[in-house]
């Protein structure tokens, strides 16, 4: 009976139980979402004041501002994602469970993806108001590009947060590793968002969206394969 039960709790089940735990912690504290939301809002306001863009220029820079705001905000939350597992040796306990690192990692990525997604859903309308945006391209493509870019950010960020958690001055180390690795995805995301907002049809084959999807597949696969090594490193 127990054997059948543990078979039932297959990989997807393990991911689900990890995910449920992460969501419950966040639901009770709401640390990550609140801090990310406020931080991203500040970045949007700062950029808006620093550049004071007209409607035409705001179309051109808005994609970049949105991506960078998400990036800065999620770094602060990603540092916390594993730091709260360190307290009371939760991480060591999780390592001893038979689930393996990959399930733990995927659940963490899904949870953070959800948190960043919620922040973006709240921030999006504010963003459109502050920058007086009036997109000229296929707006529905944003629903594809932004999740793909966010996934690239969150998946790499979760991975490197786990990697840097063991070093001295971990808060400093995460952006130093994450930003260079994330740069290709940021570039593809910004370029495709700009194409959508300005409607300039410079990328008719959606090459940059395909690149972003390819990046997601490659980097998520590598992260899943290597996560056991990171979590077991000693």
């Amino acid at each position, binding site marked *: 009976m127990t054997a059948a039960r543990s078979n039932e709790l297959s990989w997807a089940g393990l991911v689900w139980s990890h995910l449920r735990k992460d969501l419950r912690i966040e639901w009770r504290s709401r640390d990550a979402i609140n801090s990310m939301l406020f931080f991203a809002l500040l970045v949007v306001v700062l950029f808006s004041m620093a550049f004071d863009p007209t409607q035409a220029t705001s179309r051109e820079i808005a994609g970049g501002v949105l991506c960078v705001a998400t990036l800065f905000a999620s770094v602060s939350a990603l540092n916390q994602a594993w730091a709260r597992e360190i307290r009371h040796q939760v991480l060591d306990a999780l390592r001893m469970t038979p689930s393996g690192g990959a399930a733990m990692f995927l659940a963490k990525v899904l949870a953070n993806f959800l948190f960043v997604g919620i922040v973006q859903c709240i921030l999006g309308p504010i963003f459109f108001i502050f920058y007086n945006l009036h997109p000229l391209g296929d707006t529905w493509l944003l629903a594809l590009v932004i999740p793909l870019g966010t996934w690239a950010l969150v998946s790499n960020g979760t991975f490197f947060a786990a990697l840097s958690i063991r070093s001295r001055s971990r808060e400093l*180390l995460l952006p130093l590793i994450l930003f260079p690795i994330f740069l290709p995805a940021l570039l593809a995301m910004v370029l495709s968002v700009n194409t959508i907002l300005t409607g300039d049809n410079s990328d008719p084959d959606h090459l940059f969206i395909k690149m972003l999807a390819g990046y997601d597949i490659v980097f998520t696969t590598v992260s899943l394969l290597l996560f056991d090594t990171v979590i077991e490193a000693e």
Partner: protein
Amino acid sequence: MKKLLIVLATLGILALMAWGFDQAIFIAPTEATMGEVQRIFYYHVPHGILCYLFFSINFVASMLVLSWRRSDPARAMAADAWALCGAEVGVLYCTVNLVTGPLWARPVWGIWWTWDARLTTTLILWLIYVSYLLVRRFAAGSEMQSLAAVLAVFGAIDMPINYLANRIWRTQHPSPVLGGGPDSGLAPPIAAALGWNVLAWAVWGLAVLAIRVYLERRQQRIDSADEAAALAAD
């Protein structure tokens, strides 16, 4: 006997580099449209090609660290020395590549830098390996070696992207002259000068790498002796 060999090898490397310099500056014909400034090509291209070699050494050594870290820690230490030194020499070569590029671009293109695919991915490659070297400073011990090896895998993913950048996209950076399309290829005297310089800089870089690995292995031995002494004192 060993000293004699070292002296002979040093003289051989210096002679080869002098020969490469002579080929690049005096023997190779002056290019028709760009003039003398084209000669920077004999330094820019070899360093670009060779930084792949050193980053590949870093990648292979890192994979060996990951596979030996449990079964054979002594060999993993040796592989780690190669990984570190490969990244250091690779960053050096990539830096030379990134410095000579703008020096050539300013007179030929009229600008120092442009954000095209080749230049951007090269800069990203450089940033990733600098962050690799930073990780090694921030963390310590055998744990750091596994973490750095994991990061090296991510760095290695960028190498094929960088190699293919001016093959996939139309870039301002000249399209490949070696292994490119049907119009690519070099006139024999230019190809000869390039070949000699690739060889000379490869031998030079490998010599620097060997010396650096030798130093790093000594440092490792000193560190482990210190650790053993500290343990014995307790």
